[in-house]
């Protein structure tokens, strides 16, 4: 990973290449106070690929995802062990600029969480916190992000309206637009479709498909079909442990571990 500094802002560049590794998680443990939620997770995430995290409820998918952009820092009594290396930086190492790290990643949450401001302001928020005030740049970003998130046509006449007036599905696509607005390297999605109807879900799956290659996407999902449809690699987790990780086709058709087969075929979980 190269680092480049333009007008005081640290910009991370990560070299392209379908088989290059962007993120490697090495022997990662995590405790919420006394209870351990992640056990010795080790996996690598390839650049430009879509990686799905699957597993039964409470197995630690969200915890792992939130560890990647250090969202878990907000929780008091949290302890971690092991490494998560982005490019060549251990993001849990000393002297890591957490805010700069988060700027390289976009995150979409399970429940849509638009900010109480206009639609356009929501999308341009990541840029505005970076101090970008140029109206043209902001407007262009809003346009691009909304088009990518398949929301532009629905909201183009009401960009100045409050985002809280959108429907749930529109709000979720707005959050996706916000997540990709600052052109991050990595897109973290925690069950982005759980609040959506099939039509909106299909739109978001199309979007993920379109973003493939441009962004590295890690998506948590409970929907096996969705994981099979959109992802290149799939990780199956159980009780805080990474049970199996590999090409999606392999995981779904020919898993090595029994539990994985039971889970993906819907007989357990």
């Amino acid at each position, binding site marked *: 990973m190269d680092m480049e500094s333009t007008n005081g802002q640290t910009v991370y560049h990560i070299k392209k290449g379908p088989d290059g590794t962007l993120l490697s998680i090495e022997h990662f443990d995590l405790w919420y106070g006394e209870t351990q939620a992640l056990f010795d997770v080790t996996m690598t995430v390839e650049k430009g690929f879509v990686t799905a995290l699957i597993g039964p409820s409470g197995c630690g998918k969200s915890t792992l995802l939130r560890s990647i*952009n250090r*969202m878990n820092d*907000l929780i*008091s009594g949290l302890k971690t062990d092991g490494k998560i290396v982005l490019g060549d930086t251990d993001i849990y190492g000393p002297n890591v600029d957490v*805010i*700069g790290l*988060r*700027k390289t*990643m*976009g*995150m979409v*949450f399970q*429940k*849509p*969480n*638009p*900010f*109480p*401001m206009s639609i356009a302001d929501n999308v341009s*928020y*990541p840029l*505005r*916190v*970076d101090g970008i005030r140029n109206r043209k740049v902001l407007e262009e970003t809003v346009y691009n992000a909304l088009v990518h998130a398949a929301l532009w046509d629905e909201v183009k006449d009401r960009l100045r309206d*409050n*985002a*809280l*007036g*959108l*429907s*749930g599905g529109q*709000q979720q696509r707005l*959050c996706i637009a*916000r*997540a990709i607005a*600052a052109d991050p390297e990595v897109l973290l999605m925690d069950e982005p479709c759980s*609040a959506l109807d099939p039509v909106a879900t299909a739109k978001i799956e199309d979007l993920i498909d379109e973003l493939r290659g441009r962004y590295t996407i890690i998506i948590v999902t409970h929907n096996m079909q969705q994981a099979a449809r959109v992802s290149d690699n799939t990780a199956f987790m159980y009780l805080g442990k990474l049970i199996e990780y590999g090409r999606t086709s392999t995981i779904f058709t020919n898993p090595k571990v029994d539990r994985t087969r039971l889970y993906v075929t819907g007989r357990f979980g």
Partner: protein
Amino acid sequence: MKSDPHRAVTLPLLLKKEEPAPVLPTDHTGQDAGPVVPPAESVGKELSRMQIERRRSTAWDFRARGEPFVWGLGGALAVGIIMILGFIALVVYNGIMTFYPQPLEVVSLRGGGTVAGELARVESFRPGPDILQQLPEDIRARIGNDKGFARRFLYRTGNYDLYNEDFRWVPEYDVVKRSTPKELYFFERLEWGPFIGTIKSIDLKDVVVDGAALKTGTLNEAMDQAAARRSRIRQLERNEMGKINHYLERGRLALKKVEMTHGEHSPQYRQAQREYREAAAKLEAQHAELSKEAQLIKDQDSKFTVTLADVEGKEKTLKLSEIVRFYPANSLTFTDKLRIYFSRWWEFLSQEPREANTEGGVMPAIFGTFCMTVLLALAVAPFGVVAALYLREYAKQGKLVSLVRVCVNNLAGVPSIVYGVFGLGFFAYVLGGSIDALLFPERLPNPTYGTGGLLWASLTLALLTVPVVIVATEEALAAVPQSMREGSLACGASKWQTIKYIVLPRAMPGIMTGLILAMARGAGEVAPLMLVGVVKLAPELPIDSIFPYIHLERSFMHLGFHIYDVGFQSRNSEAARPMVYVTTFLLISLVFALNAASIMIRNRLKKKFFGGHF
């Protein structure tokens, strides 16, 4: 266990048709929703029957349904509401009706003599035996019939200068005749309260007009001119000459300051002294001119007089300009009454008080209350919000923070007079004293900031109300969903950016509510103010046309204190009672308006930040 033939038959039948599990025979619909009914042929059938039985019996148990508690709670609520509503209705009714002109009655008394006045109140009383003794037989018999009670009327007779009383009780048995003569006038005067009587004659400088031949047009014109003279004199004496006095005093103080810094024999002092004398001479000349002009108008004014006579024929001559308002109380049309009503309200809201606050207006008190409340809000908002932000967003949540929180909550329970003592001791004496010693040494020993004043009163009340703001702000901050903060942080925003752009705007409705509640609380607080700057009668407003225009060190008047002062400290509490009602009404309206504003602002902001659906 006994088997139940009825159920034994119906249960399998019903279940065969694949209908929901059966419930009780339907004579108690509603009471037996959802009892546990086992599947058909299960061993639990008998048990379930028992459960149903138990449920049914408890369902009809009077106490188990909590009926008495509901009644008790409802009753308590009703008592509370009735008490509050009764109080508010009393204040509102009296506050609204006080200024409406009442008819004047003339009462001829049995022992001779007449009384004229507004009927203020009627009540029953029990005349003493010695009084009964002197009464004629038939009246005594009638009182005897009424179990020894008789009625009496309280008349507002006015004419305090003639009889040394404003009010007079008249027992019903003393009344020979009551009438409402049309020629009787009600005069509101600058001094001595109202006069009730007729116009005997009027002296317009050189023409003397007899009261009977007087045309209303002439009288009104003369009155208008008198009012113009009165306000001109006031303008000259209060504003212009007052300003000159102020400048003289300022010059003297500046001179004294030079003396204190350079010494009495220094050339600077002599120079300053020369300048001061020149300026003072100029000012004094102006002053003399103004006072000459005022004297001229006064001389003129004293030639316009009116002679009034009360019902007993006693006469009183006074200057026309001493009359504020007059009206023939018994020959008013409805529009006349309304005009008088609103002109009285206008006077009340826009004029200064007269007659030891029992008459005139409350404008300085409204103004003082307003200034104090605004200053209070300016002081309390940043402190409260910053404290709450730190407690909720930055401080590490733990024992210490909990302790601080408990302390803040307890602070709200400290008696307000304690804050007054603190305000006087710390703000006025310590802070103000130091300010005086540093900045205004030439005015000592007269304190400038070293005594109660608008600034110290506002700060004291800010201290008193800061817990309200802290608690409200903390609650509003806590109510901001964690998901919004996470969303902002995930966008790469720093903690402060998240607070500034997301948390604070979203918490704003709650913060505003807290702030306005604090303002309402502060506006109605009186006890601490008595120590830190509220006075019965402030000679000057805290904002005026003399540089630096805003005088935070001045003492001021306050509606709450005004109520106390008029109601309990005045010469005649009966005469002051209407004023108490009206002022209370005004203060309650003010607080009510503040609360209404808070609700409106909150709803508007809520629409902005909370709208939408998931």
